[in-house]
């Protein structure tokens, strides 16, 4: 029997034995006593655990970010005053002040309540270095006005080296409140730096991803091809068959190294079977790089580029399909000179003939508390309303779903930044770095391909953490490029 049920039963029994009036008086007295005890406890600074009166703390979660970082989230109530003190006390160590970085947020419960108080809190604590890898007793002390609260806890051992960083990111992102108010501050002070440090630490301690390369059809020989087409594959591999059905009758692909990068160990067996079948029934040679683990869009492209032999690289999404053969030479033809010094994209269409991508524009959105978003002007509108030019047109940024550049420029820029999570914003980041290095960003508006956008991404298990992942990437881009983006969008002309 639960505590509440027992109390109810006792109350019913009491009412039967003593009569309702006496029982009601007794109840009022015990209520007053309980309140008194709560106040007493708050004044004396005794530990109040669970739900006391006036001061309580629950839903506490601790997560080690790296050797010293500890992300603490929970719910705490100390009356209605704002917090004026928060520290973590560890035996034999000076107290660790938490207040400067501590951010309050409204939990789902708070939003239903009328007082609107924020009970949630999140803070990234810095622990003293050199502690042992064993659990440690500690206390969390919070104070607000005359109320104080002390909570005993056990610091978990630092994260084990082999823990999957993506799983950890996911568990952290799932803790971000669903509503948007104040999310920027939460990311600025707690969640953003936590994920950034965690991801960096994981990247440092893990060996760079590599895999095994397999050739299908005629093995590569002779001089380097003009273009290496790098296609990362995640979630489903049947796009390979569709792409090759179009590419194999395209004369441009005689001078192309087609390289698929399988960024999904679950697909290795089915891709092998598919590739062997394709090698038997058609004559376009292609290579497949089987990565040993899922490492995200940037890593997969960088790994592919390491195996690319071409003078130029074309980053292509697996769900991009040509409208007609000859598109690759048309892309080259849209530039008055050589590709060196230019990042060149093409126009992408949805299956219903509307625009998916015609270049990107950076926009600082109020709805995202000043974060910089990548906007796709004209997205979803009929493509014929947008003029197609013979020569490539300048844009602020272009998508990585179809991006052509010279190998030398790629090496100069250092490839895609692996600090972004999974697959978002790496392309705009590459464009921003390219702009900084004096490269041009162009789009061939006369060359169109179909992009079944997010058909491949929809395979990533959806949910709140995916939305937060995008938010994190957006936050990271904003933090890194805010100054540059402000200058860029204030400039009257771009290109």
């Amino acid at each position, binding site marked *: 029997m639960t505590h509440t049920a027992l109390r109810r039963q006792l109350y019913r029994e009491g009412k039967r034995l003593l009569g309702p009036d006496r029982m009601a008086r007794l109840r009022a007295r015990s209520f007053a006593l309980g309140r008194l005890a709560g106040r007493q406890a708050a004044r004396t600074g005794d530990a109040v655990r669970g739900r006391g009166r006036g001061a309580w703390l629950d839903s506490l979660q601790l997560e080690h970010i790296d050797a010293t970082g500890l992300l603490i989230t929970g719910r705490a109530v100390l009356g209605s005053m704002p917090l004026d003190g928060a520290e973590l006390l560890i035996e034999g160590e000076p107290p660790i002040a938490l207040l400067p970085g501590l951010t309050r947020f409204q939990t789902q419960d708070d939003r239903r309540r009328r007082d609107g108080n924020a009970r949630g809190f999140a803070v990234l604590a810095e622990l003293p270095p050199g502690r042992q890898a064993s659990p440690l007793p500690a206390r969390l002390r919070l104070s607000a006005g005359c109320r104080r609260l002390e909570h005993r806890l056990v610091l978990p051992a630092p994260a084990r080296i082999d823990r999957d960083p993506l799983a950890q990111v996911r568990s952290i992102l799932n803790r971000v409140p669903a509503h948007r108010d104040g999310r920027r501050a939460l990311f600025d002070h707690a969640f953003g730096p936590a994920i950034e440090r965690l991801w960096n630490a994981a990247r440092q301690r893990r060996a760079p991803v590599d895999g095994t390369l397999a050739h299908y059809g005629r093995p590569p020989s002779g001089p380097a091809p003009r273009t290496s087409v790098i296609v990362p594959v995640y979630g489903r591999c049947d796009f390979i068959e569709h792409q090759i059905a179009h590419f194999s009758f395209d004369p441009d692909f005689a001078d192309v190294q087609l390289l698929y990068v399988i960024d999904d160990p679950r697909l290795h067996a089915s891709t092998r079977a598919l590739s062997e079948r394709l090698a038997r029934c058609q004559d376009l040679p292609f290579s497949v790089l089987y990565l040993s683990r899922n490492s995200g869009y940037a890593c997969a492209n960088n790994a592919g580029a390491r195996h690319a032999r071409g003078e130029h690289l074309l980053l292509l999404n697996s769900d991009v399909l040509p409208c007609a053969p000859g598109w690759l030479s048309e892309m080259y033809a849209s530039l008055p000179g050589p590709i060196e010094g230019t990042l060149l994209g093409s126009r992408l269409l*949805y299956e*219903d003939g*509307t625009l*998916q991508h015609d270049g990107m524009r950076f926009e600082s959105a109020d709805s995202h508390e000043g974060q910089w978003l990548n906007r*796709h002007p004209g*997205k979803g509108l*009929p493509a*014929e*309303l*947008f003029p197609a030019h013979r020569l490539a047109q300048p844009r602020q940024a272009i998508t990585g779903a179809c991006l052509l550049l010279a190998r030398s420029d790629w090496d100069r820029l250092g490839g895609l930044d692996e600090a972004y999570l999974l697959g978002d914003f790496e392309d705009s980041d590459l464009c921003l770095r390219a702009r900084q290095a004096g490269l041009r960003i162009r789009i061939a508006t006369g060359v169109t391909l179909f992009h079944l956008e997010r058909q491949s991404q929809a395979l990533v298990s959806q949910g709140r953490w995916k939305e937060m992942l995008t938010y994190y990437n957006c936050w990271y881009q904003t933090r890194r490029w805010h100054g540059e983006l402000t200058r860029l969008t204030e400039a009257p002309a771009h290109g």
Partner: protein
Amino acid sequence: MADRARVLIVSHGHPDIDRGGGEVAAHALHRMLQGSDRFESVFFARHDEPYPTHPGTVFSGTGQPSEILMHSRTSDRFLFRQDDERRVWREFREVLETVQPSIVHFHHYLHLGLELLGEVRRWSPDVPILMTLHEYHAICHNDGLMVRTRDRTLCHRATPADCSRCFPSRSEQDFTLRERYIKAFFSHVHRFVAPSRFLAQRYAEWGIAAERITVLENLLPPEPAPVIGPEPSVEPMRTGDEAARPSATRPETPASPQLAARTRLAVFGRISDMKGTPLLLEALALLPPSPRDRLEVDIHGTGLSRLSRRTRWRLERSIKRLGPGVRLHGSYRQEEMPQLLDGVDWMIVPSRWWENSPMVIQEATRQGVPVITANIGGMAEKVVDGRTGWHFRAGDARSLARTIERASGARGSRDALSRHVVAAWRPDRVAQAHLALHEAALTTLTAVGALDDRSGPTAWPEDIDRAA
């Protein structure tokens, strides 16, 4: 082409998704303008399917060139406000800036938001705005029917006091505010298009200057052309009137004289009380068995799935009781109309509300079928009693029954009416008038600017027909 003026047609729905008369008329206008050498047209429609089609945008296409779909869900049917203001200042503005229209032609404000009118004006102070009025939504809060909520009687004039009696939860002041609010946005419109004189009259009485209203019939979508060449005809050649009909839609000749002697009636449209389905069934039940057995009634009803199970069961029971001569068919496609109307002797339009310009009457005119219809509103205007059809007293089952009985034994007069109907079909003139309207919008309206009607309702001219 650079010298073709671009028209943006704004519709509250796309006929592929919601096949209402307004949507079909808007799309037909778009197709007609696209085919002209003077204009090019972009069709903008909203939809409220469960999810937007593409990630990160509310826009999508239909697969047809120059058609834009926007996802939007707006529930406000009182002030016709757009719930999500981003649709107005961001998305609709993006459409305007992309399309750069020379004329914006609204085919509704319902589900779209009246604010779009203001956004066009903010975008350009002098682009002509046309608006085709489809129902009486601005005048009447009861779904634009101008029918009283309590007893479903016909309403002749909306006043705030009367409206508040229909909707006791809203005060007289609410209705005054509503009227003022709608008129504030209507003041941006250069010219209103009314598909019927009756509707024009109603809006003129409500306070839109009659000289700002042009009476112009809706366009029908062109008759479907055979997809794969003309079929080799196996039927003998016909002469006269019959030869003019498309041979592809000709059904088999009647099998027996009994069948040939029967009178075929057809009803089209949504199954609902206001569209008169129960009224028709009541009238059929009133008929004595002898004329009823000589009738074949086909009810082509859309919206069957939206009826409650109980209503549907009742409907099916009363149809069953009428015997094998009355059949309920499900929904139909626009392209099937010629086929469904072929061999039909009379069409019945039994609506209990005013109607505006029912598309089915136009379809009947195109196919040369005379119409039995109620003697009110747009229906009475489009069907001339004794010339292109017969009238009955609106809402009166006995009157409808008598008219049907008369029709069942009058093959001679039916054929005479049919000849008048064929003569009344002038689709080219309607198309020409629409082209002239847009031409005028380009030349005169941009020069003159919007006519101001804020002077308040004065004496409206009695005859607004001259505007047509």
